[in-house]
């Protein structure tokens, strides 16, 4: 999986590419923990993300919990298959999906 981070002031944009699964989720978790302090606007671009498992969802949920306290979080460009995973698990109600 490739993770691209872009910071503009307190805005952090993260673009994910490939598979967000048990093996790669810890990587994203680590990246986020390093950069999330002071961020008020977090944007995930999932345009290139092919796959997400519960380990990935776990990272997204903890990011959402943090951002609930310090700002807002948006997930965009979600493809159909990943959207289905979000729907089944009720994540569509938790995440702000654009």
């Amino acid at each position, binding site marked *: 999986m490739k993770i691209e981070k872009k910071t503009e002031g307190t805005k952090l944009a993260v673009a994910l590419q490939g598979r967000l699964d048990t093996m790669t989720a810890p990587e994203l978790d680590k990246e986020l923990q390093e950069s999330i302090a002071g961020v008020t606007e977090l944007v995930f671009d999932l345009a290139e993300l092919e796959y997400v498992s519960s380990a990935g969802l776990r990272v997204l949920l903890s990011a959402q*919990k943090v951002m609930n306290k310090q700002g807002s979080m948006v997930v965009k460009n979600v493809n159909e*298959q990943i959207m289905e995973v979000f729907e089944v*698990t*009720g994540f569509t*109600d938790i995440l702000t999906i654009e």
Partner: protein
Amino acid sequence: MTFRKKKSVQEMSKYEQRRHSLAAKTWRSTVISCIVFGLIAEFIALAFYSASHMKQLISVADSAAHQSKMSATHGSDAVGLSKDVMAVYDSLSDEDRMKMGTEEYRDFYADLHFEQKGGQYDTLVHMLAGTLSYYDVYDIYIGMYDRKHSAIIYIVDADPNLEDRYMPGDWEEVDPNGLDKFMNWNGEGTLYDVEWTKAYGLLCTVALPMEDDEGEIASFMLVDISVENVLVGMWEFALQLTIALALVTILLAWLQTRRINRALVKPINQIAEASVKYVADRKNNLAEKERFAKLNIHTGDELENLSLALADMERELTDYESNLTAITAEKERIGTELSLATRIQASMLPHVFPPFPHRKEFDLYAMMTPAREVGGDFYDFFLIDEDHLGLVIADVSGKGIPAALFMMIAKTILQSCAMLGNGAAETLTRMNEAFCSNNQVEMFVTVWLGILEISTGKLTAANAGHEYPAIKRKGGRFELFKDKHGLVIGGVEGMRYQEYELQLEPGDMLYVYTDGVPEASDAEEKMFGTKRMVEALNKIDNSDARKVVEGIRDSVNEFVKDAEQFDDITMLCMEYKGAEKNPEGEDVKAGTEAAKATLTVEANTENLYQVLGFVDERLEAEGCSPKAQMQLDLAVEEIFVNVANYAYAPNAGDATITFAVEEPKVAVITFEDRGVPYDPLKKEDPDVTLAANDRKIGGLGIFMVKKNVDDIFYEYRDEKNVLTIKKAL
């Protein structure tokens, strides 16, 4: 009718409390009794006072009358004058008499020459006037009574007030009673009469009769004294007495109130205050429990006794309370444990149906309804090996906790014995030995145990004192199967049980039950009975095992109606469907064999991609859609990660993944591990409607698996966790 609620002491105002006090009551009652007593005393004192005063006055008047009589009879001829006047008076006609006060009337007496200076009359007037001035009396006069007209005829009047002075012969009406009293006097004591007159107010007249030589009364010497003086004196006396009594009353009431306050009110208030605080302490759950014991009341009377008795009561209550708390806690504990026992017992019996979803050769359903929280009945079924299914129905004597404990042991021994591969009869024989060797409570259990050879339909069964099973042949009717009975388990040591064989064909049904079913009784104690049960079995929809069990339960309920359930009701129904040996089935088996592939790796997340690669390779070969592939990848990842993280933790072990394809195009993936037995399907699904902050991190994996496959089942066999997923490609 409405009752006014009584105010409590705390709710009263200060004023109400004071009015409410014993001191106020004492004050009021002392004042009232003093007033009543004072009035009576005053009345008596006044009576004595006036009587003695009167007596003194009368004795003065009497002396005046005696002295006047002496002078009038010895110094002058009062008797003679009286006779002369009366003679004229008596001679008057009634008409003339009424002329009194006129000149004409006076003329009747002209012959007696009263105006003559130094005459009889003149002497007498001066004599009487002299006495009058000496004595403090109102008037002294000589008069005679006329009975006929109830009148007094004045003879001589010494009234110093000339205008009021009567002339001889003047008359005046008098009270006939007083007249009689005077005329009939017997000469004893003092003759007097008290009379109210318009002209002079209350007058007391003292009289002394004056007789002529023959002893006839010629006239009376009369002395008037005014009683007004007596009355005035009495009034003054009463006033002084009243003031004195009032002072005494106030003093007494004050003293009494003070005494009551000290001896009664204060201690009572202390007791009341102690009880108020005692109640408050209870409400606030304070530890202070010596409100009454601390009371310091030493009145040496019933109040002290009361405070001591209350202190005793307080001690007793405290003791009782601590006992009660302990007992209540104990009861609660027993209740909690009982409900826990109910749950444990329920969870002891297999209760997920269908129990072996991948076994299509038979269908099973069972139910237990205990009469109390826990029961002594049980059913059980278990796969002894791939080809043998154990079926049990049993009934422990007695009910409640003892039966439940016994049932737990019975179930455990029975299953472990049967799982060793012993036959039905051998299992019961061993079980009996185990029970007899250590059965001190004389309990026993009836058991029907059947072992079905799944591939052939051969049922080997043994019956230890249990009810007859009911069997329905395919297309036929349920009938009781009167099998050979052995003695109950735990009855006699050394029993050898017999077994029998029964060939089941596909479509045959077996129904076993405990005595709770035929012995269920309605309100009139009429029993359901086996005859009615068999009828019901054939009447209800008996197309599958579940419908049979539920149908019989409904029939029993309908029969029993509102009567209390007396015994545990337990039943089990099994339909034998036969091994899959139709031509199609054989094809499936062959196909499955062909497409089967196995991968064994160490259960570690590092190997995830190897596992996914193994599965993906086969899915692509089957021409799977990208969507189904991603969903299966998800499921495989979640299951494998789960095994890797938990099955052997903290040690390591292997996981085996088997991939097969069934017709028509269904992927069957099986995961096997030898880790701790764990059924992930029992885990409750997460609540996916919760907000982010309420969500737990994790717990989603197995839920996502369930959502992404068509079928999933778990079993623990050969000491392995076996989880199978199926999904159409």
